[in-house]
């Protein structure tokens, strides 16, 4: 910016701010939902020291601020991938077909709590929970039903599974192989981001060290045999849902990512071999612009660290590819139709932020799992964005905005500050054990709650604009208790019909491999093919690795 222009702008701005200082101001909080202050106006001087080529660049080029592909949505729209799963594999299979008919372009599987924790549906801990918040998967038989009529060689599947991720991956892959699809052709993602489980989602099973080993095992195996498979979806979504601010989501997610990179390198893998298959998963929350800046900052930070700190040479290793889900925690039970609007704004922010794949929430999710109609509206929301709003026509349209570039950089700087603090604490795992994340997130969550209760932050329908709350409830999805009964019976039949001798033998091989430090995935595949159950395989690991109890910091 030339000095004369700068001086004149500075002068005018001073006058302007004086005028503003004397004008009326509403009694509202002009901060983002994370509590970050936002200026009334941004001008060229706010980004005068940002270099376009170095800091912003072109799409598909380092540092990827504007997007990871040169052609972005002109080449292909983001994958419309709605998270789905409830009841039995058959129920969910029906929902998959419904969504595919509706135009979604990728699958995303939600598992029930017993499955997430490695319990079979007939385990004592599973009582009352089978099929309630996701699909019940106990064995390869359930996978067969789950994907019945779907060509796994032609579609990508994302599976939200963490503690027993490697086991469920084996169940999925074994099923695909049985149907004649080679492992090399399988494309999809296992969330498999155990670090954020300790931080936020809490569906861990084993302690950190053995869990990381399972992650590196999957990285090693997939690099060789399943090159199209994203081994980890390094997630910030859950961290944000647990109450963190946008910067915390950004920083903690990327810190986890760096930890995985370091683990992979430590395990002897070449960073350029596994890094291209690391993917990310972010939240898209209420504050429209804060989210867009977050996504852009994320790409830039990751590219910079991968290239400069970890010495990755392949451009594919520098790319931060991500899936986005609109913020479940922002939805209200009061006047649920408003959630359609919230989701639309949040989905739009994800698109303007350059996401590769998007899930939009259904309006009824504060009351139960999505009904067909609500899920359809959520899918249509994405289609409306893609085909009616025109935002896909050009890439990263908000680039160059004084506000957007200033905030993007600010978030990057704030994230770097967190990286320093985490490093001082001795890294992510150490920080988890010290309760660092729990305290940061807990405080942010509580501060937000107080802000809402004091009406410094308005939540429509909850602390203001409440007329309409008493209207009749909308229809919600119910998962019948019969699902549990049927699933337990089905499990019994499975145990009778399979070759139990073979299952035992395979489980023993698995135990030997796990104990000896060999890659467990080939053995898991063998177990899966023999119809060993998820619970049986998990039990082998529990015996060797132990179980994790979280220290519950406040």
């Amino acid at each position, binding site marked *: 910016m030339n000095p004369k222009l700068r001086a004149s702008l500075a002068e005018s701005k001073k006058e302007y701010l004086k005028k503003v200082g004397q004008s009326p101001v509403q009694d509202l909080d002009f901060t983002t939902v994370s509590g970050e202050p936002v200026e009334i106006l941004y001008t060229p001087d706010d980004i005068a020291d940002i270099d376009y080529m170095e800091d912003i660049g072109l799409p598909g080029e380092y540092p990827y601020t504007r997007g990871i592909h040169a052609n972005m949505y002109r080449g292909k729209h983001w994958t419309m991938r709605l998270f789905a799963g409830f009841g039995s594999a058959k129920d969910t299979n029906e929902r998959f077909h419904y969504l595919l008919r509706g135009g979604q372009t990728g699958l995303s599987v939600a598992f029930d709590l017993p499955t997430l924790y490695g319990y079979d549906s007939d385990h004592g801990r599973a009582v009352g929970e089978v099929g*309630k918040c996701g699909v019940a998967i106990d064995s390869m038989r359930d996978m067969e039903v789950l994907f019945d009529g779907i060509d796994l060689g032609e579609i990508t599947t994302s599976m939200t599974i963490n503690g027993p991720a490697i086991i469920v991956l084996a169940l999925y892959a074994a099923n695909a192989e049985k149907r004649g699809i080679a492992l090399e052709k399988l494309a999809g993602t296992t969330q498999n981001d155990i670090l954020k489980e300790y931080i936020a989602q*809490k569906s861990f099973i084993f302690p950190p060290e053995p869990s990381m080993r399972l992650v590196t095992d999957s990285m090693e195996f997939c690099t060789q045999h399943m090159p199209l498979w994203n081994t980890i979806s390094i997630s910030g979504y859950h961290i944000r849902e*647990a109450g963190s601010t946008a910067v915390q989501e950004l920083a903690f997610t990327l810190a986890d990512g760096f930890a995985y990179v370091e683990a992979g390198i430590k395990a002897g893998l070449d960073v350029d071999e596994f890094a291209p298959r690391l993917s990310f998963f972010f939240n898209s929350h209420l504050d429209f612009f804060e989210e867009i800046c977050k996504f852009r900052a994320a790409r830039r930070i990751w590219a910079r660290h991968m290239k400069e700190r970890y010495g990755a040479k392949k451009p594919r290793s520098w790319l931060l590819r991500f899936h986005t889900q609109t913020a479940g925690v922002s939805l*209200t039970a009061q006047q649920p139709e408003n959630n359609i609007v919230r989701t639309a704004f949040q989905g739009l922010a994800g698109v303007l932020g350059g996401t590769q794949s998007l899930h939009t929430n259904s309006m009824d999710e504060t009351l139960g*799992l999505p009904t067909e109609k609500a899920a359809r509206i959520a899918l249509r929301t994405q289609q409306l964005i893609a085909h009616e709003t025109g935002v896909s026509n050009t890439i990263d349209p908000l680039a160059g905005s004084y506000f957007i570039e200033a905030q993007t950089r600010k978030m990057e700087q704030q994230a770097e500050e967190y990286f320093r603090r985490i490093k001082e604490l001795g890294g992510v795992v150490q920080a988890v054990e010290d309760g660092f994340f729990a305290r940061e997130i807990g405080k942010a969550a509580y501060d937000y709650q107080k802000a809402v209760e004091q009406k410094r932050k308005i939540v429509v329908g*909850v602390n203001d604009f409440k007329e309409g709350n008493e209207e009749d*409830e909308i229809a919600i999805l119910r998962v019948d208790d019969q699902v549990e009964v049927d699933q337990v019976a089905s499990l019994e039949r499975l145990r009778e019909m399979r070759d139990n001798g073979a299952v035992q033998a395979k489980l023993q091989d698995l135990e030997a491999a796990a104990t000896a430090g060999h890659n467990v995935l080939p053995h898991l595949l063998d177990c899966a093919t023999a119809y060993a159950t998820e619970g049986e395989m998990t039990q082998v690991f529990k015996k060797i690795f132990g179980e994790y109890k979280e220290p519950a910091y406040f």
Partner: protein
Amino acid sequence: MSKPIKVLVAKPGLDGHDRGAKVVANALRDGGMEVIYTGLHQTPEMILEAAVQEDVDVVSLSILSGAHMSLFQRVRKMMDEGGLKDVPLIGGGIIPDEDVKKLKALGVSAVFGPGTDTREIVRYIRDLFEGNQSKKAD
């Protein structure tokens, strides 16, 4: 000497969402109460054990997994059979209005759904004990 109200905040079942439970725990503490947070993955037996050993005035459950009917029922039964018939059971989470009615019929004293102001919870518990004082052991 008066004794502050003691509340057990429990996460029964496999549900791992603890944001709400922790926010409520903080709010109760700010409301002058003593809070025992059980941590995740509690079985009804574990909840009863904690409630008995700590002699809490109120037991509260936070459930977002859809398993609320089963869990509330089992906890209430455990408490009744374990000598805690007079201890109120309350809770919150993702619970449709229809189910709230059913839960109340089963002996759950109050259910606080999404969007509840935590001050309402504090007030409710205080009203149960007419002030901040525990009724325990007279």
